[in-house]
């Protein structure tokens, strides 16, 4: 797949690949209990966060199925979270999205803004057919966010795996290329920005 042009600028954010200098910003949120509660691979201390950063710094393109593109979310040059696109199945054009935000910056629409840009990238640039995201059944913020993005609930697994030592409840949300409302961004602009 051809490399996308980065960074991507949205209304308020810059989405770019991770850099060594992000270690402090990443430390600030990655080990927080509220973040750790729902991440797939836990990081318990600074050393593990540093390992995670090394891995994410390598996620710069989708060349082969199984690759992941991870983008840091920057607001006024500060790292506030990250989004990732994992190319899970090339033949069927499937991608999985993951996302994490520093709770300090939650509730302001940044994640929705970053994911909308990521969806555009996935469908328009990488020509992915279907995007899906998984989340814990108790993660209400993620659930509301995915519903707002127009995703459908496709699966609700109960106790199908052990997650952090307990039986899980895992939801899968999904959206097809033809269902993604790219015009959402236009609709959300203040009145004076819209063409008559």
């Amino acid at each position, binding site marked *: 797949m051809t490399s996308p042009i980065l960074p991507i600028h949205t209304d308020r954010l810059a989405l770019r690949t991770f850099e060594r200098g992000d270690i402090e910003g990443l430390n600030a949120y990655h080990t927080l209990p509220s973040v750790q509660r729902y991440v797939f691979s836990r990081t318990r201390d600074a050393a593990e966060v540093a390992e995670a950063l090394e891995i994410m710094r390598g996620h710069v393109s989708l060349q082969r199925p199984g690759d992941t593109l991870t983008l840091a979310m920057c607001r006024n040059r500060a790292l506030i979270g990250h989004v990732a696109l994992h190319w899970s199945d090339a033949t069927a054009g499937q991608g999985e999205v993951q996302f994490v935000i520093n709770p300090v910056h939650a509730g302001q629409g940044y994640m929705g803004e970053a994911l909308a840009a990521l969806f555009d990238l996935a469908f328009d640039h990488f020509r992915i057919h*279907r995007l899906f995201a998984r989340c814990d059944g108790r993660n209400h913020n993620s659930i509301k966010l995915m519903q707002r993005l127009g995703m459908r609930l496709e*699966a609700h*697994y109960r106790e*199908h*795996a052990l997650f952090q030592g307990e*039986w899980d409840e895992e939801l899968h949300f999904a959206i*097809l290329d033809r269902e993604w409302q790219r015009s959402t961004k236009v609709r959300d602009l203040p009145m004076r920005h819209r063409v008559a």
Partner: protein
Amino acid sequence: MALYPDYPIRTERLTLRPFTRGDVDAVYAYRRREDVARYLFDVALSREECALAVQQRIGQVALEGDGDKIILAVELDRNGSVIGEVSLILRSADARQGEVGWIFDPEYQGQGYATEAAAALLDLGFGPGDLHRVSARCDVRNDSSWRLMERLGMRREAHFREHALLKGAWNEEFIYAMLRREWLGRRNAVSTARPGGDQ
């Protein structure tokens, strides 16, 4: 959690047992059919392919590690015919997850044989197999299959759309599942409802 069942497994009208080379003709009789192959991952099989399939199944009689399968021939007691097969796959030993599947000859539909055989396999999985959860999957158009899952008391957990290609077309798939406590609850309800049974 290794599972090495004793065979055969007998139900009211059926005998579930490992496959033998002598089953090839019986298997061919239904796996050559388009209506049977339609919703399977395979296409309709030739006799040689059936022989290979049977050969593979002969040793699939126990569960040890992830991915292991038990695939049993379902024999109808009243005439000794093999009318289909049922399978139990160990998906995760750590999380005690299994998956059931079945293929039945349409000639023997409508008599409750598939329900009886699948129920015996759930007894095996949740009983001696000590599984926590058993799932099943099928194409959404495969009415007889997902209706069987519902008759067994399974819940629909997923409805995937265009998540994979099957034989060149977009697949739409259901996943059903049930938990150990749900199966045991059903079995207890059935046995206490039997007339003249212990109360």
